[in-house]
């Protein structure tokens, strides 16, 4: 997985599978502390303590289509390669929070990549859950909530091409203003 945006897309798939109705994605950059924190939290089914203990085991998965579950373990490995840390908190029936801390200026930190493309795929899918996205850098903060967007759109689907193009531009413009570090 070459970009952090692809890791985010991958980790969010776990929340979608856990039937989350609201997913939070938070990215915070702290240049002074030299870290970049990515958190994905959801209100999905959550995990039992036994499942949680095995969640980062690459040979454990709750899927039945295959016998490996590499997403979380690859994400954890990437944080450790940059001197960072990785944690998962989860409770059955309440949801899960995945937090990955990367060394911001570390040579091995993957680039953020196409964050706008990742967000569009997540937001503009039929039957997508709601998302709250927050990106904070020393230059500023950008936050959006798909509930506000859907409320504004009324019966116009969020998947409509014109809406998608609007959201693409909105995300690009706002994220450029707070300068995503690469």
């Amino acid at each position, binding site marked *: *997985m070459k970009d952090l945006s*692809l890791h985010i*897309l*991958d980790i969010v*798939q776990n929340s979608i*599978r856990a039937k989350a109705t609201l997913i939070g994605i938070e990215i915070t950059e702290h240049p002074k502390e030299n870290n970049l924190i990515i958190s994905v939290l959801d209100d999905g089914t959550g995990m039992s303590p036994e499942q949680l203990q095995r969640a980062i085991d690459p040979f454990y998965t709750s*899927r039945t*289509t*295959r016998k490996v*579950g*590499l*997403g979380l373990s*690859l994400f954890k490995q990437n944080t450790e390669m940059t001197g960072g840390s990785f944690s998962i908190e989860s409770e059955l029936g309440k949801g899960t929070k995945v937090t990955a801390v990367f060394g911001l200026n570390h040579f091995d930190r993957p680039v953020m990549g*196409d964050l706008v*493309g*990742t967000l*569009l*795929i997540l937001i*503009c*899918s*039929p*039957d997508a859950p709601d998302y709250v996205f927050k990106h904070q850098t020393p230059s*500023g903060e950008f936050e959006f909530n798909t509930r*506000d*967007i859907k409320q*504004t*759109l*009324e*019966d*116009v689907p969020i*998947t*409509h*091409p*014109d*809406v*998608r193009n*609007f959201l693409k*531009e*909105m995300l690009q*413009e*706002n994220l450029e*203003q707070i300068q995503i570090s690469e």
Partner: protein
Amino acid sequence: MNKIKSLADLKKLQTEVQSKIKLREKGDHSENLIQIKVSMATCGIASGAKETMTYFIEELDHQGIDAIVTQTGCMGYCYAEPTIELTIPGQQPVVYGFVTKAKAQEIIEKHVKLNEMVDGIIPVNYSSIDN
């Protein structure tokens, strides 16, 4: 900070799009539309499923083809990612493997537009005949 696009701008767009939608026939029920599901698990994402899905969405829109492009979980064909499942209304779904942008273009041009299956179907039980 100068925020360029806002919810007020989205509201204006909503009004325009809503009037366009009302002008169209009410024939857009999902069962009457072409459906493309892109497998979006770790294996798919690492192999380029995001680019494949974005290509399908943008190219179908560009060509004015009404279709539902959505994401799905692992279909179990990790060796052949990116994989997609294509359903033409009234027909059985077909799964394609190794769907790069070039393969996606071929699928749109032949299977979606002409209803001609192309190579790359999995499980491997179909190949086109060279004349």
